[in-house]
């Protein structure tokens, strides 16, 4: 669909922007803008203070609405939209997370702009560049692919615009590609592996043979490495084959043929989005499932709905959020109820992550009482504990990764489902801190504030 339809609100012409940029480089920057109460002492940086001079602030999401991750992208988008609505209306759920938010942020309404990234890094960066030029956005989000997250990380650092990731499972996002201007809420390869690993070993024992299916980019390679490292080092599991496929593969017969003849007992499928759906359905066609036991180390929203619960019954997966956590966490219940009321289905973890990312950002801005990006970053880096839909959480200042639990789920058989979305049961909620590598283990170097 026409994904740029809400991008018209231009407050400043391109020429004016160029003029201002020129003035800035001449060292006259702050003189050209009307000073605000909180802007007086701060130099101009990124879109600050131009982006916060009106009655509303613009923030932008570049999210896949077409292609391999389209289904998951739409779910995320709904989470962001709900969060913006809640920020502007001071919803009780949002106020639990960000108590100082009152009908918008620091007296300004928040306006969400959206573009379709098709999960392509180049496209996402171009779109955000346009939003910066034309809309003076003060926050970027979007990624359902870590390739996009990593690209936007570096872009955010260069442009000095805050970026909160969408779904991103690669170790690199808060590892070797971490930046000062980016923050991640959700779980990732290393925490997924360290959470699901012990469950698999306890359930299936030591010295087993596993075939891996890996999408060919940063997410796939790091998740596969983390999971294989855990299983081989702690329980002597052997990776008998690793089938690496490009994002957007339709026919997995070649890969599955190699797996069928590999002697594996387990199929560890790191593929994601439509790739995961197709590879699992086709593994069934080839008789690999149910002969081998399927493991999903990094949960895919809507997987069970698309493959049918027959294929996910008994399957272990690590995830960020599942709606039945509403029985355990009051905020999860509020979130699931609000989401269901607006969209008529129970949110997947992508929507939850999206909502939380914006809610946390709103918290940091309102606590810092400033739109000046370094102030907001320092607020994040205080590492204060705050409530979330999975209990109390806090950021790790060294790599901007949220310390949060990882949820282990197991697929329900169709006969055990209590409603048509009751696909998974929560087996365990694993505390986050012990699952994480040391902050410097993956080569994170955050870079400068200004």
């Amino acid at each position: 669909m026409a994904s740029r339809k809400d991008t018209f609100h231009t407050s400043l012409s391109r020429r004016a922007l160029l003029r201002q940029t020129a003035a800035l480089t001449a060292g006259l920057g702050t003189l050209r803008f009307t000073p605000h109460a909180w802007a007086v002492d701060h130099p101009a940086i990124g879109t600050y203070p131009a982006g916060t001079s009106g009655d509303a602030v613009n923030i932008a999401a570049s999210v896949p609405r077409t292609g391999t991750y389209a289904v998951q992208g739409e779910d995320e988008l709904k989470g962001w939209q709900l969060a913006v609505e809640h920020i502007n209306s001071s919803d009780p759920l949002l106020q639990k997370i960000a108590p100082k938010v009152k009908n918008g942020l620091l007296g300004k309404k928040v306006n969400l702009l959206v573009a379709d990234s098709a999960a392509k890094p180049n496209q996402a960066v171009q779109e955000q560049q346009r939003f910066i030029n034309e809309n003076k956005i003060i926050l970027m989000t979007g990624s359902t692919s870590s390739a996009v997250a990593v690209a936007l990380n570096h872009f955010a650092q260069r442009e000095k615009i805050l970026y909160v990731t969408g779904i991103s499972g690669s170790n690199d996002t808060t590892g070797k590609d971490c930046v000062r201007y980016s923050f991640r809420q959700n779980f990732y390869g290393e925490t997924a592996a360290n959470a699901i690993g012990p469950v698999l070993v306890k359930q299936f024992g030591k010295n087993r043979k596993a075939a891996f299916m890996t999408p060919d980019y940063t997410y796939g390679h790091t998740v596969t490495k983390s999971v294989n490292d855990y299983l081989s080092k702690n329980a002597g599991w052997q990776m008998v084959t690793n089938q690496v496929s490009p994002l957007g593969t339709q026919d997995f017969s070649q890969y599955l043929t190699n797996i069928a003849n590999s002697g594996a007992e387990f199929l560890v499928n790191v593929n994601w989005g439509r790739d995961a759906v197709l590879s699992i359905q086709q593994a069934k066609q080839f008789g690999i499932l149910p002969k081998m036991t399927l493991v999903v180390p990094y949960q895919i929203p809507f997987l069970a709905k698309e493959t049918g619960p027959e294929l996910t019954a008994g399957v272990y997966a690590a995830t960020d959020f599942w709606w039945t956590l509403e029985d355990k966490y009051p905020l999860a219940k509020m979130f699931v109820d609000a989401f269901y009321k607006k969209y008529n289905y129970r949110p997947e973890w992508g929507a939850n992550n999206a909502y939380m990312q914006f809610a946390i950002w709103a918290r940091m801005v309102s606590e810092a009482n400033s739109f000046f990006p370094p102030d907001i970053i320092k607020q994040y880096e205080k590492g204060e504990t705050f409530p979330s839909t999975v209990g109390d959480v806090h950021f790790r200042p060294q790599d901007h990764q949220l310390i949060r639990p990882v949820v282990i789920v197991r697929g329900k058989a169709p006969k055990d489902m209590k409603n048509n979305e009751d696909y998974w049961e929560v087996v365990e909620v694993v505390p986050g801190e012990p699952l994480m590598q040391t902050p410097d283990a993956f080569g994170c170097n955050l870079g400068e504030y200004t």
Partner: protein
Amino acid sequence: MINWPTFVSQLFNGLVLGALLALIASGLTIIYGTLGVLNLAHGAMFMLGGYAGWLAYSYTGSFLIAVLAGSLFVMLVGVVMELVVIRHFYQRPHEDQLLVTFGLGIVFVETVRFFFGSLSKAVPPPPALVGITPLGFMFYPTYRLALLGIVVVALIALYLVLYRTRIGMIVRAGIEDSAMVDALGIDVYKIFMLVFGIGAMAAGFAGIVNAPVVSIAPDVGESILVQTFVVVVIGGVGSFPGAVLGGLIAGEIISITSMFNPGYSYVMLFVAMTLVLVLRPYGLLGTAARE
């Protein structure tokens, strides 16, 4: 890793994929050969065939009706598209034709997404073709075996229409020289409409018979379109036998390469295409006379 059963299985995979590509590519190539229009909406028509078939399947539960519905619906779309849009572009530059068919492809994909969403839809194979068939040296999904047969039959049918009927003769004459056909008093526009319909039907038919293998989604035609172009270039633009040969070659290149390193299958495919373009610029079975 590389052992006898794997090798034979991969040959089989290549055969199935190649036959499917051959069918889709033959639709594309006869349209281009006759009308001179490169139809960038061909991938979208593959997708439409899948959705029309899926819809028919949801209402009737019959795979056969699904196949008929998928093929005929897309044929109809092709005929209407030729009448309403393409016809007005024959005299316009190639880039206009590319843009209009590309645009129509987007319209088809997003219309389907609007009505049915992005969640993938599955069409199960007919009950008799569910499961795995032991072939002695390996196990192979029964429906994929059947798919090979189905596609081969469809290709033979297309061959018979093109090479054993009067209409086919006119179409082939049109591929060689449409101005001459026109001069002989044959209504070329009627033939053009028919060719566009048949070409589209080949894509639609492929779309629905492939649906039990790869569940359908609005973007399903995108990557197929690229592969189909490669097939047409390898085989020779406008050549039906070329499309079949190109399809089989492409299928085997992808499958056999993936036995060693799947990451290189598409690299090898494009290497093959480059080689063909360097050594035989008009494709393996193409001739310089064709546009």
